[in-house]
């Protein structure tokens, strides 16, 4: 089966179809994660500050709305989130298909997820350390930066790794509704066209991408454990 003819065909598919799709997927994941981490991090800090029981400055009026919205968005199956947001996407970007149009729902879905993950990571910090910092007269801002963030860096790295892998999955799903990328190639040119070669090549490459992200995340995690 794996003769030279097979590889010729495979190379053609790879160069013309799959390679560009890999780039699209990577670009989608990178841009989405950048947006998600920046926004999610801000929200997570806000939630850690205002958490009703463990927060540095408990404030239900701020915490509850953020929490409720985050939960609602996260309870959406992602495919439905894309179609639900379609009118908004069209209103803002003028189109519903393509990379740019995919980034909006990907980000909307990803921000609450990242925010929740980072919030959990930061709340895991030993409350005795916060008390210690408080006993030295540190302000809440100082405690957030010097104790909570500093101590939760390894957990944050793990959370971002998890979110990035999750994002690769979501990107594939966004591919189903016109975003392009590996998911779209696997579905449209593979599955619906009865082309097993394209389908499984895409799947395997997606798998490799996920493994590489996990590997990088794990390496970084172990680096972070000590300073």
């Amino acid at each position: 089966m794996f003769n030279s003819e097979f590889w010729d065909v495979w190379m053609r598919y790879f160069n013309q179809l799959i390679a560009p799709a890999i780039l699209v997927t990577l670009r989608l994941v990178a841009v989405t994660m950048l947006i998600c981490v920046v926004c999610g991090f801000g929200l997570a800090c806000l939630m850690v500050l205002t958490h009703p029981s463990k927060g540095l400055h408990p404030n239900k009026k701020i915490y509850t709305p953020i929490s409720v919205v985050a939960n609602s968005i996260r309870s959406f199956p992602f495919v439905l989130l894309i179609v639900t947001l379609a009118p908004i996407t069209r209103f803002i970007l003028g189109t519903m298909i393509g990379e740019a149009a995919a980034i909006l729902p990907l980000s909307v879905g990803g921000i609450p997820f990242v925010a929740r993950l980072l919030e959990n990571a930061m709340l895991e910090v030993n409350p005795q350390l916060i008390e210690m910092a408080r006993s030295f007269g540190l302000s809440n801002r100082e405690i957030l930066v010097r104790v909570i963030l500093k101590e939760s860096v390894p957990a944050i790295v793990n959370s971002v790794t998890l979110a990035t892998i999750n994002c690769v999955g979501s990107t594939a799903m966004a591919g189903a509704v016109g975003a392009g990328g590996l998911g779209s190639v696997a579905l449209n040119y593979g599955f619906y066209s009865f082309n097993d070669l394209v389908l499984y090549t895409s799947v395997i490459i997606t798998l490799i991408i996920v493994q590489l992200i996990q590997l990088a995340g794990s390496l970084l995690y172990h680096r972070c454990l000590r300073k």
Partner: protein
Amino acid sequence: MIQIENLSKRYGELEVLNTMSLHIQKGSIFGIIGQSGAGKSTLLRCINGLETFDSGRILVDGIQISTGNDRQAREARREIGMVFQNFSLLDRLNVYDNVAFPMKSWGYKKKEIDERVRELIGLVDLNDKISAFPPYLSGGQKQRVAIARALTMQPKVLLCDEATSALDPRTAESILNLLKEINEKTGITIIVVAHQLSVIRNICTHMAILEDGHLACHGATTEIFMQAPAALRRLQGNRENHANLSVLFCEQDQFVFSRMVRDLETDFDIMDIQHLGMGKEAQIHYSIRVPEEKLDTCLSWLRKKGIYCQTVEKEGADSV
């Protein structure tokens, strides 16, 4: 130095602190002891504004303590160092950076931080561990780091919340020695919260016993042991007290009892022996029993020799 006035705090129905008033003198090592839940940790945490209270007030060197996040409240807290039972070191920072942590957070100059941190690491005898990370330190070493860290801001008061409870007896003793040494060198006031009487006996010049949020008794440690009030006896396991004479003398005083026995031709039993203090000033407190008819002659014989003694009340009054 530290003035606690009518301090009260309750969690719902539970009265954690009940109109407590206490004065702690500058330069003393003050021990607060009591059963779990007696409110001793709460009291300590009120002193440096980690815990709110319902009424009363606390003054440290005339400055009122509060839990606020504003600069004034935080600066008052900076004057008070604290050492915790579980060390509370930042695992991702090495010994040097852990000790430097409070000063860095308050934005001191690098050179100043470096001088102070190296001096304190020397004081707690950890020069060889200066770049080690906390997970690689023993319990005693961790607590030394925590003590050095608590001293960086040159506080007037050092609070120790069960600082030796997580350590084995020998390590605990070395930590207590270190605290005493720091107290002698710098004159800093130290407040120690403990549930082990040995901690109080070893280093505290003054002590207070808390029971269910009440101040059961307080005073100089030797006085409390001499008078053995009911609160102290309850703490020691509510033993029945058969002793009728309380005697305190230094280790240098030799053959006190054998001479007393020869001179007065009396019998005696030793009911209990407690060491108070450590090192050169160590004193030994004896609870002894002499025949009732000989009690007065024994008392005057001991007093004539300049030995501190007093009779033990059968059911001693709680107040001292």
